């Protein structure tokens, strides 16, 4: 795979992983689950 392919893979997986972490971090630290 070329560097371009790896960049798109890493960015896409990174964005969606970061998205999950961001949302659940906000919920866990600020509010918690009730």
């Amino acid at each position, binding site marked *: *795979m070329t560097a371009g*392919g790896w*960049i*798109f893979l890493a960015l896409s997986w990174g964005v*969606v*992983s970061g998205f*999950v972490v961001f949302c659940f971090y*906000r919920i866990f630290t600020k509010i918690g689950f*009730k």
Partner: protein
Amino acid sequence: MKEREQWGSRMGLILAMAGNAIGLGNFLRFPVQAADNGGGAFMIPYFISLIILGIPLMWVEWGIGRYGGSLGHGTAPGMFDALWKSRLAKYVGILGIFLPLVIVIYYTYICSWTLAFSLFSIFGSYPSPDSISTASSASEYLKPYQAYLYDFIGASGGGTWLSPEPIAYVFFLITLLAGLWILGKGVSGGIEVLNKIAIPALFAMGLILFIKVLTLSSPTDPSIGVTAGLSFLWEPDFSGLLDAKVWLAAAGQIFFTLSLGLGAIMTYASYVKKDEDIALDALSTASLNEFAEVVFGSTIALTSAVIFFGMPGATEIASGGAFKLGFISMPAIFTHMSYGQFFGFLWFMLLFFAGLTSVVALSQPVVAFFEDEFGWERKRSVIVLGVIFFVSAHLPIFVSGALDEMDFWAGTFGLVILALLEIIIFFWIFGADRAWEEITRGAHIRIPRIFFYIMKYVTPAFLILILGAWAYQQLPSVLAKGDTGVWVTRGFLAVLLIAHIVAVRIAWKRRRA
């Protein structure tokens, strides 16, 4: 006003909404769309569509749903009637019950295949032809597996009528009854409990399969490894970015994957308390869906297809569509994989959980309509839904072409129309400022103000563009189809739509009386 049910916990709500969004499309449709539309470069229009179409519409549907729920309405007819003071509003809202019902009628049948195939996997019932290395092409090699699927669903003979194996009908009944049983337990006691089990289990199975695929090696060519598999989907082809088809495919995928324009999100959101957060919860739901799609969905099926069949074989499979990838090539791959029976079971069980949680979500609008607008008890509502469901499902089970026809009108065209109506009614008729206040009330996150303008101008314009382009591209060929099965399906859809109009009319007459 009758006391309505509510979600038992915030986690339950998020998982239920995620279960609604995560479906078969995350694992079967997404990789095929991405591979066909520019690979890694597809992710540019995909993420842009997520930001200007997906997330705004999520907020709109959550906002309309919570607002409607606070007034005792769990479905679009009542919600639109509350937002838009017009006699037409409730009839326009019919789409919010009609579309999920039509989709769930055929989706349940497909979901039942995944349950059946999970057991076929564990018992090793698939055909076992010669080594892959002796096959002239992937399609040639996959013929026995294709025949296996076609025999199962009774599509081998051609013609108008399908003759599925009795076991296919049995699995359909099991899936239907499971869905109805869960619905009968209620929002908190049934739907929430299901999703609290199914979604973590789905992610656990996805992770196991993801790791397995990353450690696979080709049975025929040692030079083809996981890197080649990943490159098939992720290698960017930037020329596609200049093609409108790629942008439409990306926008369409965002629509399908987030289950937008179906009415199901609004119904689930109607069980959220009036001042509880929806902004962060909607985002959290979208994040879980995106992770399942972009990480697991991009890797499991297509990467293993490349490793087992090579690039040309995977190209053939991808061009054959999602069913070929999921139900024909994957059984072949598991047959030749170490511990394939176990991993095959996991794969189809993952799809079954993804499907069942969506089946329940798509069924709930009808139940909510009966409960809220007719004042029926849950048990009665579920039984009536079950009868409608059972009778209607015979169409996609026994009539050739019915599934595709229903999928086009409800699962492709209808959902864009409903989404457009939602955003126009909420932001342009109810009022943009009031809509914004409704979405941001009780929010545990600050939504950037730019989304106000995106929701008011950009998202509706994008929807009109998609609708126009799809009508131009697909309507002529769909309307040109005229065989018996297609006309039977169109007649059925027309009767079902009229029944919805009559039901809404009766419900509103009763309310006035």
